[in-house]
């Protein structure tokens, strides 16, 4: 694996989605723009190191938080002497502690993600890279986990351990470029396991097409652990509207045997206007169901069509939805 230059350019790449032989994740102006963004956190969360995020802990910063009576063992330096002069009692002056956050990026690398025009996995990797960079630039910790097959410990471990600092951006990008698709989507066990194993809940960004019945169970597991979940529901344009798919032709009709790239399951359809119309209605209904599910659990749900430019997603959509600032 080749590391890129420190300015964020990645000369080489290891992500090799089937239909994108050569890519560069980001160019420099784009990264500069990214530095102006920050990942929003609605709640204050405890971190590990000094950072820029408000922590629930009291500590040393310039921002006053509270007073509390002195107890033996407290640091004398934090006693508010002005208060002692007035009240002749010791009070400690408490300040808001600012710590770092751990931003969790979960990328679905099942076979179904390596599909579509533009490719969904590639899109997810780029989005994850961008958001990861935003977090790194904001002195937050970033961890990436790829779930799905294709990423074995031997090759790509599928796990990018929490790291801090902009200097880690190249490593992050390299990791994301090295992601390979494979295996089946099984959201429920993976997400449940991740929720169980996470030590520091924080903002969690899930990049997946959710094409699995286990999505509700998995998302519920994440929510229960206290993550601030943002679901980026990534679909290819052909999935959003099969009428746009090249294989249906202009007439948008045809007798087809659809084969699932993950499971190999086959389904015979006779595509015609009504069927496609119903497909679209069905998809809309499902996404509405997803949105309602997420809203009920204080999750962000962002439906992403891979034909949307990444910049638009980052600078418009996610800011609009309060994921980024």
């Amino acid at each position, binding site marked *: 694996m080749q590391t890129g230059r420190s300015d964020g350019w990645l000369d080489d790449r290891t992500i090799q989605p089937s239909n994108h032989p050569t890519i560069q994740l980001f160019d420099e102006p784009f990264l500069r723009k990214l530095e102006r963004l920050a990942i929003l956190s609605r709640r204050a969360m405890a971190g590990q190191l000094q950072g820029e995020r408000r922590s629930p802990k009291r500590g040393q910063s310039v921002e006053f938080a509270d007073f509390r009576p002195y107890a033996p063992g407290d640091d004398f330096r934090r006693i508010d002497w002005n208060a002692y002069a007035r009240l002749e009692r010791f009070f400690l002056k408490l300040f808001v502690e600012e710590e770092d956050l751990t931003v969790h990026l979960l990328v679905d690398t099942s076979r*179904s993600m390596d*599909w579509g025009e533009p490719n969904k996995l590639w899109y997810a990797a780029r989005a994850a890279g961008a958001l990861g960079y935003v977090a790194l630039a904001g002195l937050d910790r970033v961890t990436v986990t790829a779930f799905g097959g294709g990423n074995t410990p031997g090759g790509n471990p599928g796990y990018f351990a929490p790291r801090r600092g902009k200097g880690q951006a190249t490593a992050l990008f390299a990791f994301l470029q090295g992601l390979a698709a494979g295996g089946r989507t099984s959201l429920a066990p993976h997400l449940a396991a991740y929720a169980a194993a996470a030590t520091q809940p924080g903002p969690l960004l899930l990049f997946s097409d959710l094409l699995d019945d286990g999505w509700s169970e998995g998302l519920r597991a994440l929510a229960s652990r206290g993550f601030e979940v943002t679901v980026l529901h990534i679909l290819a344009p052909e999935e959003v509207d099969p*009428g746009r798919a090249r*294989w249906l032709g202009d007439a*948008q009709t045809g007798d087809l*045997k659809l084969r699932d*790239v993950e499971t190999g399951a086959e389904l015979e359809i006779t595509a*015609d206007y009504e069927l496609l119309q119903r*497909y679209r209605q069905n*998809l809309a209904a499902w996404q509405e169901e997803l949105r309602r599910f997420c809203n009920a659990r204080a999750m962000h749900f962002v439906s992403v069509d891979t034909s949307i430019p990444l910049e638009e997603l980052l600078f418009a959509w996610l800011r609009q939805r309060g994921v980024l600032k």
Partner: protein
Amino acid sequence: MTSFLAPTAFALALLIPVIVAMYLLKLRRTEQVVSSVYLWRRMVRDVEANAPWQRLRRNLLLILQILFLAALILALARPFRWVQGVGGRAAILILDTSASMAATDLSPNRLEAAKTWASQVIDSLPDDARVTIITASDSAQVLVSSSQDRRQVHQAINQVRIGTGGSDLTAALELASAIAARQPETDVVVLSDGQVTLAQRLAFKGHLRYLPFGLSGDNQAISTLSLEPSPGESGMTAFVQVTNYGDATAQRRLVLYSDGQLVSVHDLEIAAVAQQAVVAEALPADTHVLEAQLAGQDTLPLDDRAWAVHHDTRPAAVTLVSEENLFLETGLALLPNIDVTTIRPSDFEVNLSQRDPVGPISQPSPLTIFDAYVPITTALPAGNLLFIAPPRSTDYFTVTGTLDLPAPRLVDSEDPLANYLDLSELSILEAVHMPLPPWARLVIAGDTSDDTSPLLFAGEVDGRRIAVLAVDLHRSDLPLQVAFPLLLANLTGWLASGGGADLPDQVPPGAPLSLSLPPEAESVIVTRPDGSITRLTPQAGRAAFTDTAQLGVYRVSWQSPVSPAGNAVETSFAVNLFSPQESNVQPVESLPLLESETAEEGPDAQLARREWWRPLALIALILLMAEWLVYHRAVLFRLWGDTSQVITANMVRNKT
């Protein structure tokens, strides 16, 4: 009732399984890899809820195709049903418009009933059927020929009027046969009462049917009416014959009017199919028009009235310029209706040269006969001229010499001047030799050994009639021949006519009439019985009048400067329907028409095949279009959706 003209087309039904088979073959699906069938499966789950409908809908194309094929095959089999009326791809309707079709036994009359039937039949014909309408009266007339324009056909039918003539079906059938020969599947229908004249045998091409119109034959008619001066008395005598064409004895009252005044009434009882004659005597002597009427009602009112006219025969004045020609004077004196004044040639010139003529010739006579003489010092008198052996040339002909022993020969025995002439016995010693002038027609030619020269020629020039006889009466045996008085009668008849316009007393309806007028008459006015007026301009003393379809008395008048006091000369003639064929209105149930296909026609004769593949073809076309729409519905819906989006967007933009 439906049968098929081309049932072999049903063999095409074998194509239906072919379509089904092709449909099954077509369902080999193309394989397409998708990211997941997760979404599709979710949808198919709802789809399977209404599976039966879904299956039907999915095969909608197949069903439409099979229906289309079925409709097409059915149309190709050319189904038809038997209908009343006329089938075929073309129809020729022959409408009898003879007088007998005016019979009122059908309401309002037979012809109107036939017209109504014809209109209905035409409306029920296939759209592209060509219709020909022929009326048969005295002659056949094609009103509409092979027309597909129904409006035109209806208009033509509405314009058919009853005539007063006979019905000559032969000509109409010949016309119809000629038209039917060039368009296949033609039905010819004769709408008539069967009182027609028909050739004994008539080769006819086509499908011929006869549709009789008429119920009753009860009719009495005045079949003869004549008016003559009573012999030896001062009054007039009328002879009337009334015929009963009905099957029962009829009682009718015959009323006679003399110039509008009732003069005589006779009650008649006429046995079935018999005649009764009435002689009415002592009618007023000055009767000009006698009208006979049968009072009461019968089937055909047209023949219940008749008219007779009495012509005042005023003798025509003839001037004979001749030196003692006994033959000529005797011959002329014997002719009726002329008044001969004989004058010597010497007196003639003196008379004519004087400004104020006195003596025998007070005014120019209609006919002047020059016998072996041509005036030298004076011009030829006005009026018609007859030269006999002219010694000199005149303005109209040139005398070049004499002709010895010519053999006379009639050029045209149909010539009115050559009527009844027999010249075989005639020998001529010497005649005047004259070349035939350009205005004249040759009546008698004289053949000599080396030449042919005219012996009698006649013609009309400068508004007058001129005849020139080259034979010297004294140098031939013509005056001794039977032909001589006949020739004189013919010549004076032609040259001195015009007093009464040569009118016959009775004219059959529709017959053309040639009015013979004095050369001076510039225009003739004919007043028809209904008061309408026709103005004719005579050409060289003759005028043709053909519009004699109305029954009644026609008045003919002209201004003649020759006539006394310059008054209008008036005469008249009567048109009567004295036609047993038309008066006999008994409908004929079957015509001894032709030995063509009509013989085989049984009671089904009124049935015709009506094909109805047209609506089937239309259904097939609609199905084809529906199939196309269903096949392309995705594109169509998308187009429609795009359009409505654009419209909505425009509306929103307009609002803001």
